[in-house]
């Protein structure tokens, strides 16, 4: 609408990566523009080329990238070649960058103040006390408490959310007109994520800074952006205001993305996902379980290191119990105790009314045929030297249940069960995608026909579309095999789509538990409400519902 030229426009940009002597297209013929003060979100799965665009604008493309065509205009000026980005000092002064992972985005050996001060000096030429004052002011602006103290601390002394705020402060130091945020919060808990994004949006509003947010989460993009741009395989498939995209998606891919985001699919977070089935018998019960880790200094279990405090819940056969909480809330400790990897400090764990909390490793071994685990990271949970067939039948070999032909048959059966192509049997894990690997891990966990399966963040490492496929598979398997799940997750949208019961845990204590529809439909505890509020896509769900 405005007569002024856009702040940044990218025209017919094509980028390819050189790999093993040939070129692999990463970005093809992309056009986009951002006006002053506008928030644009690029949504796409990993490998869709969204980060490559950000890197190109920043002039930070890796050495094996080739810009095949296109140009980038800043502020209506003449086109800028990539080499100019550096020489003209666009980076910092005009474009600020907030990287993805706050854990590795800061120099661990430098104080926070020094790292921001460096950016301040570079951008504004301030030195000494004036730079220090500016640093403190920036920390204050990004919502860091006690900025004078934080400036003297090192990155490891700050939480993930704090570090992300520091990274935002660094991006702001040059007073840029555009901030590019590459998955700024995907490594953070949803409540922290919400406060950071709120803050970023407010800062952008106050300063009139344009935002380019890159994310895989359509819900988040729709909540935050003025315009959403959907990418697939290096091309823009659709763009427009969030409302138009959500209510009238033109492309099948966009529709699939919307369907994959439980918060967006109209049924919303509170819908009961399925007809309730008769509850099976009690399978596993935690009774007043506490876990305190010994302090590394004294070796004594201390109050401060309490991972679980008086936790009790029941898992019924054939049903799904979800354990929801932020990182550090003790979710994983529950898994480890139930699987006999840790011993509880207090309380009992009952499996079919038998106390299993005190069992030694050999005593526990027979139970492993009945309780299994699917781990979080499918990229690390498969032995790189095993073929897929070897991976899935390994438990059968370990227990000496099958040999020779029987083993091959079992491998084929398990591979079919998780809907992988038969050819996958002879492949190695590195040849499979993340979603396929997670299918392999599920097949392995089901090899022994367990009655109870622990799922430790089973989809958090995967793209949204793949997430919904894996969750659908888990649902199908539960119906077919009657296996009970304990699903540990920080993501409410995952939980609502598959769980019957939910346990909300915070700092090792259960704050609320009950059927999913009850707990999320009418949360009794403020923390549960906070978690619900923070789920990306909540605002946009209203748009879709209309």
């Amino acid at each position: 609408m405005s007569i002024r030229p856009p702040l940044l426009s990218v025209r017919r940009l094509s980028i390819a990566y050189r790999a093993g002597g040939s070129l692999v297209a990463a970005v093809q013929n992309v056009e986009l523009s951002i006006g002053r003060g506008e928030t644009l979100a690029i949504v796409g799965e990993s490998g869709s080329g969204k980060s490559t665009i950000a890197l190109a604008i920043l002039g930070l493309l890796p050495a094996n990238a080739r810009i095949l065509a296109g140009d980038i205009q800043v502020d209506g000026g003449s086109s800028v070649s990539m080499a100019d980005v550096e020489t003209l000092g666009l980076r910092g002064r005009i474009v600020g960058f907030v990287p993805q992972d706050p854990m590795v985005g800061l120099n661990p050996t430098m104080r926070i103040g020094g790292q921001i001060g460096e950016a301040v000096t570079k951008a504004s030429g301030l030195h000494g006390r004036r730079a220090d004052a500016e640093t403190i002011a920036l920390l204050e602006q990004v919502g860091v408490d006690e900025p004078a103290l934080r400036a003297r601390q090192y990155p490891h002394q700050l939480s993930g959310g704090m570090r992300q705020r520091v990274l935002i402060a660094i991006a702001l130091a040059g007073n840029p007109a555009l901030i590019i945020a590459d998955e700024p919060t995907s490594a953070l808990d949803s409540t922290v994520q919400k406060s950071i994004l709120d803050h970023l949006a407010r800062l952008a509003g106050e300063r009139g800074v344009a935002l380019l947010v890159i994310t895989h989460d359509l819900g988040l993009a729709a909540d935050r952006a003025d315009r959403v741009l959907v990418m697939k395989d290096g091309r823009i498939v659709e763009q427009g205001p969030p409302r138009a995209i959500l209510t009238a998606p033109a492309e099948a891919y966009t529709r699939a993305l919307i369907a994959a985001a439980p918060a967006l699919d109209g049924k919303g977070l509170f819908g009961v996902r399925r007809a309730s089935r008769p509850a099976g018998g009690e399978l596993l019960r935690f009774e007043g379980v506490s876990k305190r880790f010994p302090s590394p200094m004294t070796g004594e279990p201390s109050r401060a290191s309490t991972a679980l405090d008086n936790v009790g819940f029941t898992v019924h056969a054939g049903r799904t119990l979800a354990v929801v909480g932020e990182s550090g809330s003790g979710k994983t400790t529950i898994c480890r105790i139930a699987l006999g990897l840790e011993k509880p400090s207090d309380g009992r764990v009952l499996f079919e009314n038998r106390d299993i909390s005190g069992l030694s490793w050999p005593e526990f071994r027979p139970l492993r045929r009945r309780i299994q685990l699917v781990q979080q990271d499918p990229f690390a949970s498969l032995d790189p030297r095993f073929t897929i067939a070897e991976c899935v039948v390994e438990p059968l070999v370990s227990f000496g249940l099958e040999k020779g032909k029987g083993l091959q048959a079992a491998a084929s059966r398990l591979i079919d069960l998780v809907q992988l192509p038969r050819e996958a049997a002879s492949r190695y894990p590195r040849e499979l995608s993340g979603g396929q690997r997670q299918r392999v891990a599920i097949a392995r966990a089901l090899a022994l026909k367990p009655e109870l399966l622990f799922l430790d963040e089973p989809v958090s490492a995967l793209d949204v579309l793949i997430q919904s496929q894996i969750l659908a598979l888990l649902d199908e398997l539960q119906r077919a095999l009657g296996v009970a799940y304990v699903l540990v997750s920080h993501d409410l949208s995952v939980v609502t789509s598959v769980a019957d019961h939910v346990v909300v845990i915070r700092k090792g204590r259960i704050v609320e538990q009950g059927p999913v529809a009850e707990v999320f439909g009418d949360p009794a505890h403020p923390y549960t409400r906070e978690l619900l509020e923070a789920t990306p896509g909540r605002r946009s769900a209203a748009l879709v519902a209309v």
Partner: protein
Amino acid sequence: MVDDSRSELSTARLRLAAGRAALGRSLRPSLRGAERLGHLLRRPGLVLSLAILAFVFVAAAAPTLLTSYDPYLTVPADRLAPPGAEHWFGADEIGRDLFARIVHGSSLSVQASSIAVGIAFSAGLVLGVIAGFAGGWTDAAIMRFIDVLLALPSLLLSLAIITAIGFGTIPVAVAVGVGIMPGFARTTRSEVLRVKTLPYVEAARLGGASRARTLLRHILPNSCGPVIVLATLDFGVAIIAVAGLSFLGFGAAPPAAEWGTLIANGRNFLVTAPWLSLIPGLFVMAVVLAANHIARTLEDGRP
């Protein structure tokens, strides 16, 4: 219109290239022979290194293929002959062909170095795996023993061992092997410590795998890589150490000639016939550089 179809075409080409790259990646472990040769030819340093090592191994296995001279045949007329058409590397003080002696000496030197690396590799692997896998007191005891070995300079340690068990090619090999073993033990232990905390090892344990199965099927194969690279790297070190000990006279008894012995022999004629020491010395240097170059390549090639 034309423009569009052209861009379609180039897109298709890019797709094809992408597919080919993906194929290449998936075939990587069994890279086709022709392609592998192509990769090799782009790296002349590696080709030269492989050629040198190939020469040495052929010389060790079948020396008569490379030289028709008898390394022990004395020809007084050719005494201290300079390098030339007849004697490529010259002849020594009693007229023996130096090239023939280097070629025939390869067998002893390669044998000694291989035994040394073999001892270091197997002993280091066993000690490192036990220390890393068992942890606790076992780990502490083994690693303090390794620390003691590390605290002594390896040449001094080798000399002490040789003095204890006697002279000769095999004792030299044993002494050098023990001298370089601590590095293997430490590397193995750190790899085992790293691998044993990986999720797939935990998954195997939860799947009911016994400790032995976890160790042999998961931990060992996945921690070997860096140790094998270390072995190739230490092959060069072993050659130098073996040559050093035989230079000092602890190696094979005359007239058999290890490379170190040849260098030592030439010392008395440094002014009149410098090539007698220089050529075997340069030869040892070339072999060690080649071994190191290959080791570095292996190291870089690891994922």
